[in-house]
């Protein structure tokens, strides 16, 4: 075990469908300025910077860390870029955590962003596939995600109604999130009747496409008090991969997520996640993923996800609230989405989640993922 690390400052942009008033780097700057103010620090106090980005083809800028470092005033500082699909924000935070825990830096700034309005999203995502094997038939990750949701319906009972309840919950929660850009309540009927995109995935199962950025300041224990008397301490964090097309994979539960959860829970002393966590933030690119993650994260047994959402337990006033921020349903700048989940979870245990605050939240779980099903990670944060 290395040094203790805490999140001491967070910032995100007011996400929107299209920001034509700022460049990609300008968007990052907004989030960084907010995170530094929140941490009561300036760039001079930062030892090292991690730039987390989604796939380069989303935005046509290769080696964006060069551009971003200039725009946030981080020239002449150590900079690394982490890119790991949609979960890249959490992977970036993990890299920052390692730097501080290992004693190589005292304060690290993590930035993550995507300006999805600038590129052709599904086409770009299709290039994640093997050019020889599958790319020509890929439909972004939506075709894949819908197909395995269909398979989970038969085996695990993840019905269209259950997923619709996730959409209703998250979109309602997003109403209280000042940074969300989709603020419209929907009913189960609305979701079920919405236009199919890749059935069973329908329009209202899908998050918006967003422009947005997020930034987090991590600090060692010794210096944390300069920023806040209530950091979000990192009790455990991990990010795991699995083989893409290995023999005999069911794809019905997220194996890398279950692996990450098992490993990190052990490190963080979590033996009963449903009872111990006060709040959970998951990165649900589509509603069906939230159901699947309930099971992989051990919030319920496999096959019980539909009952868990139906019971109301994951509502803001339930015993295990999931996505009080609204999750990706409120805003989904993909490269930033995982870091936003971490920010929302940290804000809960720091007691500054404002309209989304779960009373007395002391222990939070954040989940993230990238590369259709291959990369999954979690973080456990405590007050």
């Amino acid at each position, binding site marked *: 075990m290395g040094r203790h690390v805490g999140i001491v400052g967070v910032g995100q942009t007011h996400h929107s469908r299209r*920001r*034509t*008033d*700022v*460049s*990609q*780097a*300008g968007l990052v*700057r907004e989030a960084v*300025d907010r995170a530094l103010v929140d941490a009561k620090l300036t760039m001079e106090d930062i030892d090292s910077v991690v730039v987390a980005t989604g796939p380069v*083809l989303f*935005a*046509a800028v290769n080696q964006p860390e060069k551009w971003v470092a*200039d*725009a*946030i*005033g*981080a*020239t002449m500082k150590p900079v690394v870029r982490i890119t790991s699909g949609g979960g890249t924000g959490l992977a970036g935070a993990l890299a920052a955590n390692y730097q501080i825990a290992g004693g190589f830096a005292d304060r690290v700034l993590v930035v993550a962003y995507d*300006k999805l*309005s*600038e*590129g*052709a999203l*599904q*086409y*770009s995502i*299709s290039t994640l*596939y*093997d*050019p*020889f*094997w*599958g790319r*020509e*038939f*890929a*439909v*972004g990750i*939506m*075709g*894949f995600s*819908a*197909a*395995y*949701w*269909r*398979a989970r319906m*038969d085996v695990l009972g993840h019905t269209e109604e259950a997923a619709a309840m996730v959409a209703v919950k998250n979109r309602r929660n997003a109403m209280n999130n000042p940074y969300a850009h989709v603020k419209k309540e929907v009913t189960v009927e609305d979701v079920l009747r919405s236009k*199919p995109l*890749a*059935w*069973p995935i329908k329009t209202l199962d899908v998050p918006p496409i967003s422009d947005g950025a997020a930034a987090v300041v991590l600090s060692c224990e010794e210096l944390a008090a300069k920023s806040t008397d209530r950091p979000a301490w990192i009790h455990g964090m991990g990010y795991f991969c699995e*083989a*893409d*097309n*290995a*023999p*005999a994979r069911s*794809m019905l539960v997220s194996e890398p997520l279950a692996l990450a959860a098992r490993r990190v829970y052990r490190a963080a002393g979590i033996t009963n996640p449903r009872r111990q966590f006060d709040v959970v933030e998951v990165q649900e690119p589509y509603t069906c993923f939230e159901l699947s993650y309930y099971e992989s994260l051990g919030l319920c047994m496999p096959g019980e996800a539909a009952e868990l959402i139906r019971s109301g337990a994951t509502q803001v006033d339930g015993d295990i609230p999931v996505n009080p921020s609204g999750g990706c349903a409120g805003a989904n700048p993909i490269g930033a989405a995982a870091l936003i989940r971490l920010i929302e979870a940290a804000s809960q245990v720091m007691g500054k989640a404002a309209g989304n605050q779960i009373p007395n939240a002391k222990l939070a779980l954040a989940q993230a993922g990238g590369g259709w099903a291959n990369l999954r990670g979690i973080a456990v944060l405590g007050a």
Partner: protein
Amino acid sequence: MLAIPDTFPIDLPPFKSDLSMPYTLTPGRAAGSFLAEIGKRRIVGARFPRSGTVVVPAQDFCPLSGESDPELVEAPATGTLAAFTQTGSGLIALIRIDGSDVDMAHRIVGATLGELKIGLRVAAVWSDVGAEGVLAIAGFRPAPQAPIGLIRPLEGAGKPVDVVPYKLNLHYEHAFGPYYGRLFDEIKHNRRIMGVRTPDGEGAMLPPREICDITHKPTGTWVEIKQTGTVRAMSVIYLEFIGQKQPPPYIYAEIMLDGASTRLIHNVAGVDMSRAKELVKPGTRVRAVWREQRTGALDDISHFELIPDGK
């Protein structure tokens, strides 16, 4: 020790993959203002008030001090040569516009390599109407007599350009290697789908590969995979997107061929699309339908069709 594949070297030309990605990039306020004014033969820079740094062309953030929110200024069309090189398509130089604290890259016109010297005075040569963006300046020419220009307040500036259309055309050539090489050669010439046995010999992997992803042991010998299989997962695609190969609706399917232990992504077709959800499910039996044309790709299989008696 890696096993030598019991295959034959196949000299396939590389697989060509062309991507053509459209973008609408946003330059931001300062660069957007530069782009708007350059068409009017004005060069816009940015002055950062705290440090006094001047950056030409204009940027939203100072690369030296990290400041934001600059005052936009009009820069002169003259400067000095800071660096230069000869390229196949002409002379390229770094030019320090008078009053700027950073260099800008551009072409040199109306001069030969031998005439250039660091410190040479240069002046912008404007393009004829029609050139866009920074190419509204055709290049910089030697101008030994040009007086030192001054940075002035930017007056009467128009609305910044907020969106710049852009396109990335990317051409890749992927090597097949021995495993993909044999797989696609067999598909093309023999209409056979070849996998390799898993290390325990129980199943087979498609696409064939050298090492098993789970056990990390070398894979076994080549084996022909049946052209019938079972749908493991499916969805009905209604979404339209750029780069799509066929018009929706169609059925996306992940299929486990008989004898294989891995999935294949393809389409199921030839079904009444109004009943697609009922007709195609996890567990549905399908078989490959080949195209006439033989290109040696997975797309040589036109689609998978339902096996009428479900066997």
